């Protein structure tokens, strides 16, 4: 706290200066930058060089140190008291980035390298990134777009948004929503405790998709020709679909399974007390006022689900009927 106040005071009283320096880098070099306050803004270019621009206190000195495969942005604060620095970096597209901060907003644009961006009190915005992309914030929103590879995006107290991403996706929040659009992945897991989980993207054959929340809605846009085995589970919530589904099995509690197409992919939808909705791509994923945008006639409230299972019980077991020994069918 004292350090924060001191840093703020220093920022106010100290004259601001600008650093602008460029160094050449070898292919494969990774950039590391650990900031305290301010912002980190990274853009890319085709040169094998890093340009460091920064607005900072005149008491603060910046330098680029290369040690082996790592290029480190070194900061020397006056008397060791950290101050706010606004970093503007231009790096090669291929460069891997390891960026972190405390009271720091982080943005990366059009990177093709591995990215790790982590902050406590700030937002993380990433465009691009490949192989491994990690974006984390405690208090701020996390947004990742056009990334590929293994993607992890997490926030504690704000939302997580992914768009046009591919690869293995893991997204989570505690007190925020998780929204994904235009996703091309066969392995997606998204969860939150208090918020909406929304997915719009491909459902690939053989893929695995799991969306869960405790106190929010789960909304998934299902492409028309999707092949998926869908498992729905809720306790105090509801399930509705904008297209008809035929239940394979209803287990004790509000849990039911059904198959779309060949059932190749696996989709798990879980909300303890929220609504679980399947919708057509492009349909809105949130309720507007008291109205759903999709038709009620395919909604499956529990009484209807029970009627369905009574019919289903007359049929032979289906492929999805795993017959949990510890769980009874609905009477």
């Amino acid at each position, binding site marked *: *706290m004292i350090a*924060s106040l001191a840093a703020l005071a220093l920022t106010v009283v100290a004259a601001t200066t600008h650093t602008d320096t460029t160094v050449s880098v070898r292919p494969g070099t990774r950039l*590391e930058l*650990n900031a*305290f306050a301010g912002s980190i803004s990274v853009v890319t270019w085709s040169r094998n060089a890093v340009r460091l621009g920064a607005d900072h206190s005149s008491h603060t000195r910046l330098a680029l140190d290369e040690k082996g495969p790592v290029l480190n942005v070194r900061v020397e604060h006056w008397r060791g008291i950290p101050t706010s620095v606004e970093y503007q970096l231009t790096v090669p597209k291929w460069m891997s980035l*390891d960026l*972190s*901060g*405390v*009271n720091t907003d982080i943005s990366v644009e059009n990177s093709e390298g591995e990215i*790790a961006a*982590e*902050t*406590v*009190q700030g937002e993380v915005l990433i465009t691009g990134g490949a192989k491994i992309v*990690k974006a*984390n*914030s*405690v*208090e701020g929103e*996390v947004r990742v777009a056009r990334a590929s590879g293994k993607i*992890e995006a*997490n*926030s*504690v*107290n704000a939302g997580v948004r992914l768009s046009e991403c591919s690869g*293995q996706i*893991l997204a*989570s929040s*505690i*007190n925020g929503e998780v929204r994904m659009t235009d996703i091309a992945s*066969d*392995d997606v*897991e998204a*969860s939150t*405790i*208090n918020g909406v989980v929304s997915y719009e993207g491909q459902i690939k054959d*053989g*893929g*695995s998709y*799991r969306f*869960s929340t*405790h*106190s929010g809605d789960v909304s998934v846009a299902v492409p028309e020709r999707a092949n998926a085995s869908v498992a729905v*589970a809720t*306790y105090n919530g509801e399930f509705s679909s904008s297209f008809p589904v035929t239940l394979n099995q209803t287990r*004790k*509690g509000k*849990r039911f399974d059904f198959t779309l197409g060949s059932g190749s992919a*696996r989709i798990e939808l*879980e909300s*303890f*007390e929220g609504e679980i909705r399947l919708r057509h791509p492009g349909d809105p994923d949130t309720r507007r006022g008291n109205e759903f945008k999709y038709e009620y006639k395919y909604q499956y409230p529990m009484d209807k689900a029970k009627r369905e299972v009574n019919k289903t019980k007359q049929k032979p077991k289906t492929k999805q009927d*795993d017959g*949990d020994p*510890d*769980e*009874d069918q609905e009477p």
Partner: protein
Amino acid sequence: MTDTRGPACGLESGRLSAYLDGELTNGERRAVEAHLAGCEGCTALLADLRRVVDQARSLADAAPPEDLWPGIERQLKPRARRTPAPAQALAGPSAWWRRRLDLAVPQLAAAAVVLVLLSAGAMWLLLHGSGTRGPAVTGVTPVAPPPVAAARPESTQAPLAAAAPPASPALVTAGNAGYDAAVAELEDALASGRGRLDPRTLRVVEQNLRVIDRALDEARRAVAADPGNTWLRSHLAATMKRKVDLLRSATLLASTQG
């Protein structure tokens, strides 16, 4: 140790261990689960592996031994090169906790006992100094590590969690004792280090702990009402893990923000 049992078992060596550690992708995990459904040998081996975790319960009363440090150090090393701590400490759960584990509550509790040991050892070393091996922390009076296995009712927990609505004691089953001990331990550790956290960040942590506690309370009540519902148990276990993970990460962040 091999995990290939049974003449027709094609499961790769180490797969079960990775499964138990939550290191598999969603697809891999489901493949293992599908295999387990039809392979008695692997099912038995998995039970053996879990029993090893259970046996950790007997260690719960021990003070954190010094040789815990290498493992703790390995966990800390990646972020030791950069301070203050990145937000991954709070926002990015570790691989173990990230991945869904369909463990029953008692199994989670058993795993939590191991976490008690690790967290106690780590936090004692982090917050109270550790000679020349651990991260240097100044301004802290060395004290003995807190008791490891002292499970407490939630109503007597550290101030950080005191604001959270306590779960009904009736809903805390005996199988949760290890988990409660782990949570209590981490809350103690976080209470010790809360002065190092920015007040704003601390408020966010506390707010989110309350969010999780509300969810936990609701999930526990649901499990009590419908104990045979495996999904509810899984949901409860996942929520419990989220709390442990947030606490663990917050203590780590506190240790590096000081």
